[in-house]
């Protein structure tokens, strides 16, 4: 599925004199090209904000187009307006299912928002939606105090020397363990420095078919373990499928893929909701394994804890769910903070935005910024502020801060762990401290990744073939690696080469052209 180039966006860029590479220098727009870091304190509703002094004083409106939790964004938007009374924030929420189509329609109609969220980076980059905000990012002191890999792995730079996107919503990778199940099975609790093999052993040893209390399973899954393994296998990996920043290598992925398929086929993974196996196990076909008290560990999403297990409705299930970092494969890596997969949604300033410094400040407030997070935590603490379904905001897909600011984290942990005893609060503190080297899922952070998945990986149905036992994951390594590198190289050339943003050096361009040639050349069809 080729992404279309939004000619209208590029045309607008040309009309207003913006390049894809630089901040605003147009008439009627902001001329500020860097963050001065000069601020003054402003106290609003008990929060001390560091109001930037280098924004325009013009009366302007900035449109923020997003799929974040709407009531939270509304709260943030109104607070931003209080801090910057000359700036009106037009908060536009769109359901994630229609988000891309709607955004395309807005661009076609010359109604491009100023600040956008996105998850599929191929969509954003192929349409040249986001501007190079390097000058803001590089000069902004706050960006130096984020989760390490945001800068060290160039997350949001997409393999270039420029910054195109910032992390907006961060959901750390996590393994949930039900300590009550371990106690029942007399299995020792792992440490936060556990290794991948120790995790697999826990899954195996905590699957018991003949327990007097009924069947116990070692793993209830939401995310496949192969997604985790590739990144857990080496600190050189900065993306799924063994992506090292420029190239893919699926050999490590294949190990995790085969391991997970074998666990499923051999009976170590709990039945899924809506299956006969679930009905046979629990007597209710629509039961969820996370409510049974008979599963030792879960590969659920981060938000499952607050949204489900932490709610009153789950008190009845006698669970003791605690968090663990996704373990690294090697003991050396596992003994210290290490890379861990995470769900990160990104955001950027659009190429057609004329007040880019102000838009950057708004984007920061909505995403990684300290002031925005203070505001979020205030909203999350006030459980009278609810979503459309009457649910307090902290239970509605609440992210974690990607800033390392201590004040923010202290407040976040106090909010997150409200009602927990000291022991559990400490467990969460330990976990949060160990998950600050996030590596995002591939479709959000690697150019060409989603095209690769849509046109090759998922088309072949590799997961299904391996899960069925008819193929080994290792069978696919060679071809899948070639294809992945071809798609990545093609995307890098298309997005960042001379016909795109034109930011690749001659050396880099030659590198990707060579990669493309070595991995299929001009082949555009997939071989199945």
């Amino acid at each position, binding site marked *: 599925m080729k992404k279309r180039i939004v000619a209208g966006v590029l045309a607008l860029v040309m009309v207003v004199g913006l390049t894809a590479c630089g901040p605003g220098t147009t008439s009627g727009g902001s001329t500020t090209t860097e963050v001065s870091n000069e601020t003054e304190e402003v106290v609003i509703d008990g929060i001390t904000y560091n109001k930037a002094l280098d924004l325009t004083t013009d009366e302007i409106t900035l449109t923020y187009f997003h799929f974040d939790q709407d009531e939270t964004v509304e709260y943030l938007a109104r607070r931003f307006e209080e801090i910057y009374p000359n700036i009106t924030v037009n908060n536009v929420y769109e*359901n*994630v*299912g*229609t988000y891309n189509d709607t955004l395309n329609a807005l661009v076609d109609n010359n109604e491009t928002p100023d600040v956008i969220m996105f998850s599929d980076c191929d969509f954003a980059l192929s349409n040249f939606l986001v501007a190079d905000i390097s000058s803001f990012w590089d000069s902004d002191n706050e960006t130096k105090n984020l989760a390490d890999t945001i800068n060290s792995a160039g997350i949001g730079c997409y393999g270039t020397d420029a910054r195109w996107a910032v992390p907006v919503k961060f959901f750390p990778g996590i393994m949930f363990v039900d300590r009550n199940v371990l106690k029942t099975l007399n299995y020792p609790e792992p440490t936060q420095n556990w290794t991948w093999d120790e995790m697999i052993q826990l899954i*195996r040893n905590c*699957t018991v*078919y003949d327990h007097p209390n009924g069947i116990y399973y070692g793993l209830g899954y939401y995310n*496949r373990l192969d*997604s985790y393994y590739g990144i857990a296998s080496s600190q050189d990996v900065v993306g*799924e499928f063994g992506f090292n920043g420029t190239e893919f290598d699926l050999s490590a992925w294949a190990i995790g893929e085969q391991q997970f398929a*074998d666990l499923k*086929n*051999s*009976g*170590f993974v709990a039945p899924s909701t*809506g*299956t*006969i*196996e679930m*009905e*046979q196990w629990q*007597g209710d*076909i*629509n039961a969820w394994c996370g409510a049974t008290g008979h599963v030792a560990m879960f590969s659920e999403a981060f938000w499952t804890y607050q949204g489900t297990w932490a709610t009153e409705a789950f008190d009845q299930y006698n669970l003791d769910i605690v968090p663990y970092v996704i373990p690294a494969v090697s003991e050396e890596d596992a003994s210290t903070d290490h890379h861990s997969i995470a769900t990160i949604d990104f955001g950027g300033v659009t190429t057609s935005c004329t007040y880019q410094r102000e838009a950057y400040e708004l984007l920061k407030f909505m995403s990684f910024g300290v002031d925005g997070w203070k505001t979020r935590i205030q909203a999350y603490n006030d459980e009278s502020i609810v979503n459309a379904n009457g649910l307090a905001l902290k239970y509605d897909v609440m992210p974690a801060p990607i800033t390392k600011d201590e004040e923010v984290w202290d407040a976040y942990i106090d909010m997150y762990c409200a009602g927990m005893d000291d022991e559990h609060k400490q467990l969460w503190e330990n976990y949060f401290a160990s998950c600050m080297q996030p590596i995002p*899922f*591939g*479709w959000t952070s690697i150019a060409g990744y*989603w095209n690769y*998945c849509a046109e090759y*990986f*998922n088309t072949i149905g590799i*997961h299904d*073939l391996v899960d*069925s*036992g*008819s*193929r080994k994951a290792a069978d696919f390594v060679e071809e899948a690696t070639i294809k992945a590198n071809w798609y990545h190289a093609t995307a890098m050339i298309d997005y960042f080469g001379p016909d795109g943003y034109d930011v690749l050096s001659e050396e880099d361009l030659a590198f990707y052209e060579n990669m493309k040639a070595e991995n299929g050349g001009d082949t555009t069809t997939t071989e199945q």
Partner: protein
Amino acid sequence: MKKRVLAALLCAVMTATLLVGCGDAQTENSESEKESTQKETESETETDSSGGEDAVLSVDPVVHYTFDSADENWKVVVADSAKAANNAYDISLTTGTRGIVDGSKDDIQIIDGAVGKCVYLNGSNALDLNFEATNTDAYSVSFWVYADRMVDFGPTLQMGSNIGMADGSGVSWLNITQASWDGTNDFPLIWSRNENYNLDTANTCWPWMYAFDGQQLVGQWVMVTVVDSGETYTGANGATYTGAQLYVNGELKYDSADNFNNGTYFEYTWDATLAPGLMKPAEGQTFEAYFGINYWDLIFKGCVDDFYVFDQAISADDVKALYAAGDATVTPNPDRTDDTSGPQDNAKPLLQNGVGKNDYSQGWWSTWSDIWEVKEGETKTVTYKNYHTDLNYQNYFNSAVVLQNTPTGHSGVETDANYAAGYAEYLVARLDNFAWKGDVNTGTEGHGLCTTESTWNWDTFKDDTHGATIVLTVTNNGSTADVVFNVTTQEGATYTQSYKDVAIDGPLYFCLTVEKACIDIVEVK
């Protein structure tokens, strides 16, 4: 890495599509149709001595199953996991995971229902509604349903032509099911498709109707009525759709004509209505109509009652009459002693080093162990535990050994996924004294390939092989190979199955495979 797109997209369509609960809005058809005054016929007023009173309708149905007794034209069917010969057509043409074969009316219960008696299906059987397509553009179907168990996209009524076949085979179907697009299980979702329309457009005809304020189906009676006006429209994507109405419990929940009149009908790709022509199978197509089963999804468990098919679009008054004939307060009370959560099979083993899925679903020639080499003059020994299904058991639902000449691959056909250059089989040998190689696939010729011997007690073979410990030895004698299965049952009985003097003319490798079975390899020496 798969992204969960479909649910989000469908959810998005849900939020974006303007569905209007239209109350008593009339359709074009209803304005011109017959008088809605009650017409009594003998069949319509006859009170079945074993059930309730039939609805008084202004039109005659072409099919009416009261389910007040088993003496009606419907049949009982069951799923066949082995995809054996199907009643409708060559099962090998299906893309589903099962076949549908005849069951027995002895296995269903007829109990008090919403309208007189109803049929209770215990989760392992379903109904072949066994009627011919009306061959009309307009039609209506209506029935009562009460679910003990229902999963999203699972079938209640599913009918159409070539419904189990692959895309591109003129597939058309109507599926009345459940979805959770708004976070709760809502019934019904009316999903339909017709590949015989719009073959030249990019978007296939695949519309749906969904009651966003629908019912919970589990634990209560719901009457569903779908009315197809027979009139067709062309949507914005070029697909042809038909006007349709959805009634739930006698009330009109959705009318596609209203959307058309409001100008919102063609706004989205997935237009909310029905595919046309579902009751007009093309020449060569097979029409099927089932309740509670299709070729893929979990079988329905619960009750069905008062099933009607009309060869025209019935009126809102007739729908109300259908509903008025029933009593939604009746709680079905079947004997659930023999209820199944699917067919009961052997307990699943937990495999430490398994080959084949532990739920016995592995099909033939679909998975293999590692491939081991046996050098000349050597013997390789593999000790494993053997488990197999108990359902529709055949003696070949077990493990088998493959002697081959390559260290990789399981096929010599270049286009096969498991192709290996030069691959050839010396022998494929099962536990049940049957062997072959390549295209030589008969017992006689297979046995002619080697010297076979077994000590099985065939009366107890099935039980003996399940859970048995098997020590398999493969010996390379240079120009021949010997294969011996030494079997010790769970009870301690011992048997031997051997295939000796198998001719080999090159390197010798072997692996294990399974069918409707799994093995747990303990040791390889």
